[in-house]
């Protein structure tokens, strides 16, 4: 379509008046947007048609305008009612429900954490309690032991004998408390020199020339009870292989004392 055809066929006029179909209208619009000369002609045409229209103005009754504005208001009100009210309400309730659910979740999580922490604390407390019980038990045992040793030492009929070291072990000094009525022997090994791990001190009672085992002296006790042997004439301490011996090794006698 060239410019001349458009002008001679009055296509712009027909386009303006809305007589053309969609396809033709689009064609004209395309041409107008690219051809400034035709566009200027069309602008003039529009202006003249508009002036023509305004010259023939007939004022419509005021009722038409109020009806129009009412119609628009009620239309917008209708859509407001349909769209906003239930929507905002349901959103509001949904929001509340979501908030409550979130609070529950946070609360549950917090409580679960708390429960775990409390469980752990309880476990710790139980462990400590068991430990304490064990400690108390061992302390009690020790106290009983010490008490009995003390009772034995403090007994009025207890006699004290000092075993001083011979040439093999001159620094040895063992105190022994012997009570014939209660048949107990307690010794203080504070001044007994340390031995290596392969050897132990062992105590013997001499009964009519025969050496009878009174027990191996413990390395980690300062005060300990030994076996009381009836009719013993002397107390002897020898160095023996670790764990003790059936018979004393006389060559390694470190000290002895005769009983009265």
């Amino acid at each position, binding site marked *: 379509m060239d410019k001349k055809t458009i002008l001679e066929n009055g296509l712009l006029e027909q386009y303006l008046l809305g007589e053309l179909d969609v396809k033709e209208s689009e064609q004209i619009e395309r041409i107008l947007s690219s051809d400034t000369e035709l566009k200027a002609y069309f602008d003039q045409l529009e202006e003249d*048609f508009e002036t023509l229209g305004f010259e023939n103005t007939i004022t419509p009754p005021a009722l038409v305008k109020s009806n*129009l504005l009412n119609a628009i208001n009620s239309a917008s009100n209708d859509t407001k009612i349909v769209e906003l009210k239930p929507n905002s309400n349901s959103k509001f309730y949904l929001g509340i429900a979501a908030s409550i659910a979130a609070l529950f979740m946070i609360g549950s999580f917090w409580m679960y954490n708390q429960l775990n922490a409390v469980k752990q604390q309880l476990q710790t407390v139980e462990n400590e309690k068991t430990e304490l019980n064990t400690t108390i038990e061992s302390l009690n045992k020790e106290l009983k032991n010490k008490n009995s040793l003390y009772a034995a030492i403090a007994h009025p009929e207890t006699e004290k004998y000092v075993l001083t070291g011979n040439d093999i072990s001159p620094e040895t000094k063992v105190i022994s408390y012997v009570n014939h009525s209660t048949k107990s022997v307690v010794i203080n090994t504070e001044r007994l020199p340390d031995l290596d791990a392969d050897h132990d001190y062992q105590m013997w009672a001499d009964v009519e020339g025969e050496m009878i085992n009174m027990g191996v002296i413990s390395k980690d006790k300062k005060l300990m009870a030994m076996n009381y042997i009836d009719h013993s004439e002397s107390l002897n301490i020898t160095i023996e292989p670790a764990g003790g011996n059936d018979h004393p090794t006389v060559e390694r006698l470190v000290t002895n004392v005769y009983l009265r």
Partner: protein
Amino acid sequence: MQNDTRLIQQLKNKDESALSLLYDKYSGAIYSIILKMIRDEGKAQNLLQDTFMTVWDKAENYDATKGRFYTWVYRIAKNKTLNVLRKNDPLIQTDDFSVYKNKEEAISIDSEYLELKGAITSLEAHHKEAIELVYFKGLTHREAHKEMNVPLGTFKSYVRQALKELRITYSKAIIVLLLILNVL
């Protein structure tokens, strides 16, 4: 007539006061067109309201680069009126979509509303009639040339000639207006 850009933007943003102002400005010219087409005041008023309802609802469809706001509203009003005319006259509609056969019988309107005013009245009778048919009565060029009983080419030249004369009248009016403004 133009310089409504701001109002039209407000209209697109659903500003009722913009619609009110644009209605005040354009309703008279559009009402005149509808009245002259449908020749029934009641129907014309309904159509005018309907036209501006569409203007309100479809404002975002208006594209200022394609033409004037008046032209857009004019086309809406014309299409709506033609639809009503065709619906109401099914027998006439079958005849070449021309809704204007026997139309003179259907007049229920103050004849004053049908009279043309302004520059168009100074045109030669056949030029005036050509414009009246296509612009005020809503006929297509193809319907109008039959109505005037002249070939389509001749009818088109009537329209072109009429528009040229109107153009001269309007530019004279502007010159006179400018002269008056200068004198003042």
